[in-house]
């Protein structure tokens, strides 16, 4: 009972049609979230657009442009370029090892002359593209065949390995988790997950012994933040104080003492949710989570509506990745997870994260616009 009344696989849409089909409500939703971020960045700077809020706005505007452009591009084109994009990003990850810029003790940045980019951020998206492309070509039965499992595992494992040695454990785990979600959505049998989970548990001691001291400390501190309130546990403790002091409706915009008096660390990036909670209270925090939830709901809806496996997997991959960021960041600032350097999507100050997320949303929007396009499984259809 497939509805062919509007679009068929036989006819390509024109740009105008695509622009009408573009879900502008979604862009509005995303803009609302970003605006909460602008407001917080304005407050962090004690009521000034510089140095953060204005630049963030520019980035968001650029991001919105990227999103629209990505959405206009036919989903089949994205599918066609999935592997090459993955390959290019992978090479950039390798390059980072040799000519990358150091920042915060890790080698993450690549200087392309006109722009500095973080290949690991890009990898999160191109990995999704490549995996979706790979799983698109498999039947449900083939997905669970060992030889079809090995290839995507390598596709995930190789970039993960490169990111781990940067070292950036957080991003590596996110890559792994994003990949695992696609396996799950593609229908890989449960036993694979059970076996992997069990062996991951068994591997914990080995991994632990190879962690850097600061990584170990983060885990210790997470387990008992009051252990050393002026040392490593300081951030979590101050963050909880700020949130708690915010109460139901907060201390008022620009009135947060914990953040404005610098008791709170990294409040324009990783701890921005804390600042929001202090100044706007539980009400502000729930409002932001509500907006996030709407974004997720829309994305799931896109995935479920889509008539091709590639689009479904891509949409759900983008959505779950987005969710991971939100959950890890918010859980971290509330002391539910160890302190890891994960920004709050759309709100935390930061260019690469903003641009790559908007790009991912653009891909998802392309899926939405081309949701009725049917794509055959066989590799001969492309290439």
């Amino acid at each position: 009972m497939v509805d062919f009344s509007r679009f068929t696989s036989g006819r390509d849409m024109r740009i105008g049609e695509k622009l009408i089909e573009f879900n502008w409500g979604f862009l509005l939703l995303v803009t609302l979230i970003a605006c909460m971020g602008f407001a917080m960045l304005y407050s962090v700077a004690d009521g000034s657009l510089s140095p953060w809020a204005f630049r963030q706005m520019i980035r968001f505007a650029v991001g919105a442009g990227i999103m629209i452009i990505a959405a206009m591009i036919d989903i089949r084109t994205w599918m066609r370029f999935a592997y090459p994009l993955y390959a290019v990003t992978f090479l950039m990850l390798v390059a980072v090892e040799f000519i990358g810029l150091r920042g915060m003790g890790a080698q993450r940045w690549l200087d392309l002359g006109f722009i500095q980019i973080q290949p690991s951020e890009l990898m999160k998206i191109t990995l999704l593209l490549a995996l979706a492309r790979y799983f698109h070509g498999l039947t449900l039965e083939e997905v669970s065949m060992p030889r079809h499992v090995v290839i995507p595992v390598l596709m995930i494992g190789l970039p993960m390995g490169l990111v781990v040695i940067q070292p950036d454990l957080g991003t590596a785990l996110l890559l792994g988790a994003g990949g695992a979600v696609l396996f799950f959505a593609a229908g890989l049998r449960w036993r694979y997950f059970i076996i992997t989970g069990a062996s991951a548990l068994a591997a914990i001691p080995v991994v632990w012994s190879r962690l850097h001291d600061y990584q170990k400390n983060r885990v210790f501190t997470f387990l008992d933040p009051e252990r050393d309130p002026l040392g490593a546990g300081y951030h979590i403790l101050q963050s909880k104080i700020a949130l708690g002091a915010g109460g139901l409706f907060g201390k008022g915009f620009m009135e947060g003492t914990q953040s404005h008096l610098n008791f709170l660390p990294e409040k324009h990036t990783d701890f921005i949710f804390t600042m929001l909670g202090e100044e706007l209270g539980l009400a502000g925090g729930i409002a932001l989570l509500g907006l996030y939830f709407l974004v997720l709901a829309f994305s799931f809806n896109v995935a479920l509506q889509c008539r091709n496996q590639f689009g479904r997997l891509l949409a759900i991959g983008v959505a779950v990745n987005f969710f991971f960021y939100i959950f890890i960041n918010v859980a971290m600032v509330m002391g539910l997870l160890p302190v890891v350097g994960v920004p709050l999507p759309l709100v935390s100050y930061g260019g690469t994260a903003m641009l790559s997320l908007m790009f991912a949303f653009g891909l998802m929007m392309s899926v939405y616009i081309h949701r009725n396009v049917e794509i055959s499984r066989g590799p001969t259809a492309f290439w």
Partner: protein
Amino acid sequence: MQFDNRDNSRYQTFTRRAALLGGAQALAFATLAGRMYYLQVLKSDEYRMLADENRINVRLLAPLRGKIVDRFGRVLASNRQNYRAVMIPEQTDNIEETLDRLSRIVEITDYDRKKIMRDVKRSPRFLPITVAEDLSWDQFARVNVNEPDLPGVQPDVGETRHYPYGEDLAHVVGYVSAVSEKELKAAGKDEPILRLPGFRTGKQGIEKTFDKELRGVPGSSHVEVNAYGRVIRELSKDPGQPGKEIVLTLDMDIQEFAWNRMKDESASAVVMDIHSGDVLSFVSTPAFDSNKFNMGYSTADYKALLDNIHLPLVNKALAGLYPPGSTFKPIVAMAAVDAGIDPKETVYCPGYYRLGDSLFHCWRHGGHGNMNMHDAIKHSCDVYFYEIAKRIGIEKIAEMATRFGLGQTYDFDIPGAREGLVPTPGWKRAIKGESWHQGETLITGIGQGYLLTSPLQLAVMTARLANGGMAVVPRITRAVGGEIIHPAEAAKIDVDPKGLGIAQGGMDGVMNEIGGTAWRSRIPEKGMHMAGKTGTAQVRRISRAERASGVLKNEDLLWKQRDHALFICFAPVHAPKYAMAVVVEHGGSGSGVAAPIAHDIMYEVLKRDPTQRQAYMPSEADPNRGRG
């Protein structure tokens, strides 16, 4: 269509698993919301308190220390501006270089420099550190002008205690200095003000006695600080209350006069109003400089104080104990009249008195001949007093001495008074375990032996004698914080008025009759005649051999072995107002050294007549006070 069926199975699985993922996410969001509810609603009060603890800092503000003024309101201790240079370490790139430049204007010793560098390390870099204190106006001006060349250095004005009269008053007002470890320990957590940097407490004299009153009530400033302790803004400020003003009974003019008259001696003098007990002058020489204690005595200066044989750190007026010598004779005379001895009865003085095998000598080698009580006081005849002391016995003498204020301390506001000693047979048995000898009664009769008195006690004794036997007590505080303290009603002393009259008359004779021992120091002006009694207290034992070959003159003795010169007096003789005691340590004779000093001071007192002038009316506490 096979194609569609294949996709359908994938789609169904996908839908199922997407639902699982969505459900998991909803659950995760619920967890986050629950955690937020827990932190922001359930535990909100607790965290709000913690947040305030984080940001609000209470800083104590030192109150201005109260002034000390004399009875006419002249300032004896106040606060003066202290010109300083402070440095904020974060504002200079090179602290050493800045100090080098500053040292071209102000001397900075290696010791100072070490201390500064230590302070720099200890405190946050945005807090000012004192690098030079107590600058002259000239130096201060140069620091101001050179500010651009002295990065981080700022001129600053603080308050410090100032004593305009320095040494003259040191033994009255005492001094303040940095809080000691002992005080900190004693106060515990009760008095956080003691921990303020640069806070001073009273260590001696009025500064010590009224330390709490002078201190005032510390104010506080609630400030908001950031995570590094830097003050962002002041939330509220309570300026506190300045310390109370202390008004003394002292007349600074007389004090200064007396000080100048005696400063080259090792001496002390106390001038009192005989009715109220107001101490008008209270001098002990030499003294120390209160100002130097405040800023910290240099090691060399302090050593000089300790090494000085004239003991400038000892308040001789109340802690110096001397045998009263002949100044004690009026007491013995009154005790004798009380005991029924007829003052007209004469005793023959051959120059010595024999008791068993012992000879007791009179100061006049050839003797005085026949002496009645009046003449015996006037000529200070020792033999007469040996005789009557023997007759009435030690107990009666001791009783009279005690009634007139000897051998005790008073409720006096300058700390450190010593009791002295009025000996009795009971005392000797208890302390020395020996029985009393009659010879000891004899020498007590002329104010020698175990008898020890302080100049303050002698002044009190004289005042009680002059005011007709009222047990007046000395006081030096007239008002505290605007509240005038009235002298307590003095009790009547149990003494025969006839004896009192004889004692007063004898002291009149000492000065105003030819042949009196202090005739040369009399005040001839009408209405200013004074009565007095000389005393020369022997501090060494004169051996039989020395007496045979002629007693050595004081000038030929080492200073430490010379006699103490004493003098007590009151004036005007027929309507007394003022009493005084003067003691010059190892000064020689009472008539030759102490009496002339007493003359000069008493003459000045009588001319100024301070108790007849309008005294200063403190009114800070209540503007209506002082009207009545």
